[in-house]
């Protein structure tokens, strides 16, 4: 499955050999190849430049390229390891590696801490947690009174902020997550382990008809789309 030629390296900037990536991650070579198929599909969805930009990432997660989301932005920024505003294939595989069921727990804990440390100060401040909570409520169209939000924050910080300095440091986060392991559920994608699930995605993706469904287009719509955007 798959054949990595120099063509891949030309069309995909920052592309790394799958054997090398597999040796440095929990993925097998065929899983890396399957991830490449996924990567190709995402990275060509808006601009066909072999890189995943913010819009393409949003499109992949929300099926809506214009959907702005605080948390997706954080994930994007963390995947964008080289801080170039785009995710290349190497970034993609190495970042997804943290979500592998066999990845080290400390890597998952570390990633989740960075995720919630919005301004990268090395602490998760109360104000940041409030901001994230409000973003979540907004996203789910839930309304809570400010007092209630403050109560939730009080309860959270009572448990997590052991030295009561109004912020959660890495050690406090480690302890907190050990006591509340369900908080790391988002850090594992079970199907990353099952190579064949990824192959299913490939076969589904290959189908022209599914491409139409993905873009919610009829045949007429498709011809219009290609005439407008020349894909």
């Amino acid at each position, binding site marked *: 499955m798959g054949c990595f030629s120099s063509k891949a390296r030309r069309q995909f900037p920052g592309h790394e050999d799958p054997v090398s990536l597999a040796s440095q991650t929990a993925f097998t070579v065929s899983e890396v190849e399957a991830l490449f198929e*996924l990567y190709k599909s*995402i990275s060509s969805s808006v601009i066909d430049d072999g890189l995943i930009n913010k819009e393409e990432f949003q499109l*992949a*997660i*929300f*099926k809506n390229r214009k959907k702005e*989301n*605080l*948390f*997706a*932005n*954080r*994930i994007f920024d963390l995947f964008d390891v080289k801080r170039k505003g785009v995710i290349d294939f190497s970034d993609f595989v190495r970042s*997804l590696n943290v*979500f592998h069921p066999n990845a080290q727990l400390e890597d998952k804990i570390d990633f989740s801490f960075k*995720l*919630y440390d919005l301004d990268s100060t090395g602490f998760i401040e109360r104000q940041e*947690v409030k901001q*994230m*909570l409000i*973003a*979540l*409520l907004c*996203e*789910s169209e839930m309304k809570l009174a400010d007092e209630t939000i403050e109560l*939730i*924050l009080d*309860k*959270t910080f009572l*448990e*997590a902020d052991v030295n009561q300095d109004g912020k959660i440091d890495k050690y406090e986060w480690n302890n907190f997550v050990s006591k*509340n392991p*369900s*908080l790391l*559920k*988002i850090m594992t*994608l079970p*199907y990353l382990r099952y190579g*064949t*699930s*990824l*192959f*299913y*995605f490939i*076969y*589904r993706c*290959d*189908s022209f*008809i*599914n491409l139409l469904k993905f873009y919610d287009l*009829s*045949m007429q719509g498709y011809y219009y789309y290609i005439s407008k955007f020349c894909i």
Partner: protein
Amino acid sequence: MNAFELISMSKGLNLGNLFDVEQEFKRETRFTSKCPANEIIHKIEEAAKPLGFDVHKKNYKLRLENMKAGRKGNLNVATEIFQVAPSLHMVEVRKAKGDTLEFHKFYKNLSTCLEDVVWKTEEDMQEK
């Protein structure tokens, strides 16, 4: 409930969406053909044998069995041909036993070989 339990419910933190796993793993599919039933049967046989499948025929039903065992035993595929109109047939290809993903792979290979037999795929038929 603590703040982080709520926060982790965000859709933006669900990377499973990248894999679109909500897609149902279908266990059967259909296509239509304008070829005569005997020709369809013959073409399926011709396509299945080189893929390593044993073929059992009975009337307009075919049983295709992978001689090699897969992830969940030997993949077993049942095909049935229905006459919809004098020169229009509907062919149903269904997984009878084995791994659904292997079935998908098999069907993909099969449909490549059946290109001249297939008139409309299931997706074409669902087109409004």
